[in-house]
Each structure stands twice: as structure tokens, then as C-alpha cells.
């Protein structure tokens, strides 16, 4: 299956700062692919390379089958892009803004546009300048979805929005998955955890994790094991055991490749008798925290 977005060893430098470091990523078609990471992780840089606003220092990025450096003009008739800090023509009224964009898109759907106008309660006769931040974002999203793009790229679209507006936007994005792939970035996992089908975690320009949500959830477990007697931390722990710690006879770690049988036999093999073992599922937030911490300070 073709990937709408694919990067290969993508790197971007701003002077001496490495914003992206050898990023290789494949975004599968369909669903909502969330790009998360702390501020300064390189999310916006990656997105701006994908839409050909920035040029990569090294590596390649392919968007809808085309090299991202060739993305321009007609190619944007298939890509809907909205960013939190995008400069809209504020002197335009909402209605004339949507009307102005229509002729640029052969696939513009006036009915869908009207639906978004109604759904978002957009005031057509108000100037964009006079809209609140949330309303402006809704207008931008309506203009980016009304032509049924194959790929929707959103850069921090929910930042600073109230929950009601956020829910409306999320609903629109979920509806759009019927015909497109959504690639959405956020520094706040909670914003997108509920509706993302895939997650990519970026930290300091490096890709830490990228897979679909059920797989992530099933793969990570918080493990707490009580042994017969206290043990020291052994030197050669498996690489999938993250944040390993001991407190007397109790071991704590996170298994990033959880298989119940394999894990149990591995513990028995290394530490002998187990008095008690608990394999607790983790929230996505905690998984990312664990991944981030272990990436910075390997246990």
C-alpha cells in the first residue's frame, strides 16, 4: 500500500541546531496519524518540509508519491494544510475567503463547504480579523477540508482552543477520514489521544516511536515483580526493559515488547522464584514519558 507520507533519513539543520535527525517515517493511508512530542521536538519543521516550506538539509520526504521539494501549485489541490500560526487574509470576510478559494480547487464541494459553515457556525459576513482564534481556526479548517483533500496536514490545530471548539474540529477530522489521511501534530498528547489511530513520537528531532495505537497499548506494560529476596540490578538487562529499578525484593520496569509468557520466563530465568508479578497496562502518556526518559538516560 502506498504511504501518503514517507521520509527517509530526513535531517534539517538551522545553523548549529539539528531540528531533525535522520528521520525515517512511513504514514499509512487512512486514519488519523498523530505526531506528538514536546515543544522543540521538530514537529513543525517536519511538517514544513512536507509541504515544501522548508528544504531538508539531508534525506528525502515523499508526499502523495511526489518528492516534497516539488510540492507546489497543483499538488496543493490534494493537500489540506492548516497551521496554528498560519497568516490568513484577515481583511477578507469568511464568506469571501471561502468563495475566493473555490476556483483554485477542481474538487471543491460547495455542499461540503456549506455543511462546515453550518457545523462550525461560521459567520460568513464577518471579517477574519474580527474572529476569535477558535473561529479563525474553524474557518481555516473548513477551507482546507471543503475540497476533500487526500491528505490533511495540521500543525498544532488545537493549541489554545476551548474544549467545545476542539471537539467540533475533531469531529470534522474524524468525518474526513472517510476520504483522506490526516497527519496532525500536537505537543499535548491528551488533545489527540482520543481520536488518533496512529502515533508518532518525536523528541529532539529523533523518531522515538511510530505505530498504530492498539499496537502501542498492547506492547507496553508496567511490570512490578516481588521476589523472595532482594537483588542488585543485573548488568545485562534486555533492551526492551525500560526504567528498571529495584527496591529490596521488588523490581519495577517497563516492558516495551510485552509478551506475557516470554516476560514471565525471562524473569524466572534471571531472578528465580517470583512471589508476585503484576503486568499493568499503561496510558499512552505514560508510555511516551517512559520512552522519552529512557531515550535521554538509558537505563
Amino acid at each position, binding site marked *: 500500500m502506498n504511504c501518503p507520507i514517507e521520509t527517509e533519513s530526513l535531517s534539517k539543520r538551522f545553523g548549529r541546531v539539528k531540528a531533525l535527525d535522520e528521520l525515517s517515517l512511513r504514514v499509512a493511508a487512512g486514519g488519523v496519524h498523530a505526531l506528538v512530542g514536546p515543544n522543540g521536538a521538530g514537529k513543525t519543521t517536519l511538517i514544513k518540509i512536507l509541504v515544501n516550506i522548508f528544504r531538508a538539509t539531508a534525506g528525502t520526504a515523499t508526499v502523495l508519491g511526489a518528492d516534497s521539494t516539488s510540492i507546489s501549485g*497543483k499538488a496543493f489541490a490534494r493537500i489540506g494544510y492548516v497551521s496554528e*500560526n498560519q497568516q490568513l487574509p484577515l481583511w477578507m470576510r469568511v464568506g*469571501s475567503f471561502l468563495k475566493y*478559494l473555490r476556483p483554485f480547487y477542481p474538487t471543491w464541494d460547495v455542499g461540503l463547504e456549506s455543511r462546515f459553515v453550518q457545523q462550525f457556525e461560521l459567520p460568513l459576513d464577518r471579517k477574519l480579523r474580527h474572529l476569535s482564534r477558535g473561529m479563525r481556526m474553524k474557518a*481555516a479548517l473548513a477551507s482546507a477540508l471543503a475540497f476533500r483533500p487526500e491528505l490533511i496536514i495540521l500543525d498544532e490545530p488545537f493549541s489554545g482552543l476551548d474544549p467545545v471548539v476542539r471537539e467540533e474540529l475533531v469531529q470534522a477530522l474524524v468525518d474526513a477520514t472517510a476520504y483522506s489521511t490526516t497527519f496532525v501534530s500536537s505537543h499535548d498528547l491528551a488533545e489527540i489521544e482520543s481520536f488518533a489511530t496512529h502515533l508518532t513520537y518525536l523528541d529532539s528531532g529523533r523518531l522515538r516511536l511510530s505505530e498504530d495505537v492498539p499496537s502501542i497499548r498492547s506492547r507496553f506494560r508496567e511490570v512490578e515483580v516481588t521476589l523472595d529476596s532482594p537483588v542488585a540490578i543485573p548488568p545485562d538487562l534486555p533492551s526492551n526493559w525500560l526504567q528498571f529499578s529495584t527496591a529490596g525484593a521488588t523490581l519495577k520496569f517497563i516492558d516495551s515488547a510485552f509478551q506475557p509468557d516470554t516476560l514471565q520466563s525471562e524473569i524466572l530465568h534471571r531472578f528465580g522464584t517470583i512471589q508476585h508479578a503484576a503486568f499493568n497496562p499503561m496510558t499512552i502518556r505514560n508510555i511516551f514519558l517512559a520512552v522519552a526518559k529512557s531515550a535521554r538516560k538509558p537505563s
Partner: protein
Amino acid sequence: MRLIFHIFKKDFRHHWPALLVSFAILAVFVWDQPRHWTAHPPDLRFFSSLLRYLPLFLSLAWVFLLIRIVQGESLVGDRQFWLTRPYKWHTLLAAKLLAALLLVHLPLFLAQLLLLKLAFYPVLDSVSGLLQIQLMLFGFLTLPAFVVGSLTRTIGQASLVILGLFLVLFGIASLMFVVPSLEFSPDDFGDVMAIITLVGAVSVVLIQFAFRKTRISWCIIAACLASYPVLLLVAGNTTQQTRSMPLPTAAHPLPAKLTFDSTVSFQHQPGEQLESYGLDTRVELPFLLGEISADSVVRIYGIKLDMDLPSGEHWTSYWHSSFETLIPGRTHVWPSVTIKRAIFDQIRNSSVQARLSLAFNVYRVGPSSSIFVMGDSLRLPGDTRCTRDPFSSRMRCFSALKSPDAFVLLADLPNKNCNARADRDSDPWAAAPAFYASLSESSTPEFDLTPIQETSVYLTRMHAYEDLAADVPLCSGASLVLARTKFQYTVRTEIDLGNIRVSNYVPSYPRQIIPKIPRLPSRNPSDKFSFNFLAPALIVKAPRP
């Protein structure tokens, strides 16, 4: 094409207030122009001075409008919504050019057509000239506005960039004061600079629209600006300049023999302050002029004085420009040069070895005809219509798109029917007739917002020593000889002045030349007198009206 109009319509809607302002100024400009086409334009008091600045206001309004139109889809930055919309760069550029064409160029074109119609000039004949003005408008206004607009995001930034560019260009222009005689640079240098500027500006606009590489664009601008002083310094090289003024050959001889007249000088009173302008002292050197061919008119193009100072140093004035015209019949000429005050003070009381270089532009006089001042008006070639300014001896002449082609007017004035004022008449006149020479030749129209060009035509006649001239009146019925001129060649001569005392040639105040020339014997004035100075074969006699 549809998208080009679509973007244009958006820009039109967005910038209608600025557009309205430019239309209003243009309308006032068109309304005001006919007022100037009279002998003495009526004074509108305060408004007259305001209306004089209309071309400036109009240009500023257009520059503002064009910059805002280009900035409508800002080419600087990475947050503009349009960057990720299906815009094609050539469509966007075409839309902006269409806006410039329809909102700036077309209104001016129509306004100029209207002005030509109002001035009773043939409109259709002028269309190609008007299109040339449009091209110049594009080069001088639209293209620079596009360059500034494509490199900035706001009008504030654009103003700063314009100010910065002006300061840099002013700095480069100040080289004129440092590098002497830059005006003698060969024309090629001007052409090279124009080509560099044009290529640079077009490159910046294309790079910005196609790639939005603002840093590269600024580098191009910096390279263009850096090339100007280099070119100016090369162009200011005296050797290079002298090479463009060759010595006489058989094909291009000197137009007249010049002999330094060492018998004539200025008479100074003991202790008299010598005339000086700031840090410079002007000297006028008397020359006897041999006979100029009857079918030639000559303009002294450049003057250079070289001196061997008592200190053993060599001093050169570098090339100075001059606009002195030599017509057949003239017998004296006083080329003048300025000498730095400090140098002059070194040599004022001593003799120095001096050598004068003179460069001439030689023009051939074509067939001549006689014309008459009819009442207050005079007709010149190229449908040039003149009317007498009641407050001076001058004629205000109007023509379509450009000044009339090179011509010379000769007349035996003043005469008994057309007298100069008594104070002037009391001085003896030189034998050469009164004349007016317009020798510049240009096939392109003047770059001006008005298509009606004004030229001031006046006849001057030299006084006895031919060091000074005075305007003479052009009375109704006065007969003039009109001849077209054509540039032939430039030639240079170098004249050894021997040992001269430079202070003898600093004009005295009051101006007194010794030895005195006796008044010419009175003679019967003749309106046909000036024909004597033209080859008979060239004269076409016209019936007197």
C-alpha cells in the same frame, strides 16, 4: 487565465481605497495640465505650489499601490496561507502584472491620450510614443515597486527598504563629487549600469515569485549596488575619457582654428578681491576663433586645463563640461575652468606653463528655411507650438511627447523693429547673429507623466568680446532662420598656452577687459543678415507672411 483574473479581482477589491486615491490624483493632474499650456499660466495661489507636486504624489500613490498589491501574497516568510494553496507562481506574477497594467499603466495611458487630444495633437500618431513611455514607466516605477514589494511584508518594511536604497544610491552618487568629471564617462558605462540594474531587478522578481529565496535576492541587490561604484570609478578614469574624444583626422577635422589671444585679459584694480565661488576660482581664457564652416554648428563639449606648478607638480582640472555653442560668424570664445582656491593662491602671482584641452561636438546644419514670429506665436519643427511669455524675451514652446529634434535658430536681432532694452543695447554687439541652438537628439519620448513637453526658446546675442551674451526680444514679424542639425563627430584639440599668469584671466568686478574693443560702426540692420552665415545652397527662402 481564469485564476489570473480571479487573483486580480481580489487585489482590486482589497486595494480600492489606494486605487481611488491614485485615480483622484491622476484626475486632478489631467485637469491641471491645460493650465500650463499658455504663455503665462494663471496662478492658483497656494494650490499652484501644491499642484506642482502632483507628479510626485501620483508616483508615490502608484508605488504604494503596487507594493501593497505584491505584498497581498507576501513572498517573504513561511506562514502565509497562500503558500500551501494551489497557486502557480507564474499565475500569481501574471495577476500582479495585470493589476499593474490595469490599475497604473492603463489609466496613465488613457490620461495621456486625453491630454494629447485636449492639446490638439494627433492622438493616433502618438500611440507608439506613449507605449514607449509605458515601457519606461515599467522600468522606472513598476519594476522597482515589484522588487521592493517582493522583498518585504509590510508597507513599513517597504518604506525602510526604499529609504535604505536611497541612502546607498545617494552615497554612490556622492562619488560624483569625489571622482572628477564623471559626466564624461563613455555612454557604454551608463548602458552597462542600466543593463545590470534591469537584469538584477528582473532576477529578484522572478526568484522571489518562483522560489521565494529572499536571501539570494538581497545578495543580487547587494551585488548590483556594489557594481555601481566600481563602474563609476572605472568610468571616471581620465585616460579612458580622453580616448573617447579623439584628436582630429582628415575625416574629422577641427571645426575651427583656435588661437590663444594673449593680448586680452581682465583688468583688475589694485587690491581687488578676485571672483571666487566657495573653494574654487573660475578663469576664463580668451581665444580667437577661426572661421567655422557655414554648414556647421559646434558645441564645446569638454574643457581641461593642465598646469605645471612652480613646485614642480603637475595639476589638472580634469574634464569640465561646457555648453558653449559656436556658430558661423563668431570670432572669439572664452572657455572657462575652475581651479581649486588653494592651487590658485599658489600661482596667482607667478607665471605657469599651461595647456588647454578642448573637446568639440560638431553638428552639420541641414537645409534652412525662414520662419516668422506671427503675433505672439511661432511654429517650430515637430509640430512645436510656441507662444511668447509676456514677462520675458522667451517663447514657451509645447510639443507632443518630446522636445523638437535638434535645430538652430538664427536672427539679426535686435534690429530697428525689434529692439533690446536700452541698457543692453548700449553695449556693442558682436558681429555674429543672435541664435538659439537645441542640439540634443533623442528618438525616444521624454519620460514624463504629461505627454506635452515644454521647451523654452530664446535667442541670445554675444556682446563685443563674445564673453557674454544677452537675450534678445522676439517681436511679432521678426524673421528667423531655422535649420535642422545633425551630430557628426567629437574631436579634441590640445593648445599650449605657454607661460601665463592665471590671475589675469579671473573675471574682474565690474567686468573689464583690456584692450577695449571700439564700438562697431552703425549699420543698417537687415532681417536677412543671418543668412550670411549659412551656406547659400542651404537656404530655402520662404515668402514673408
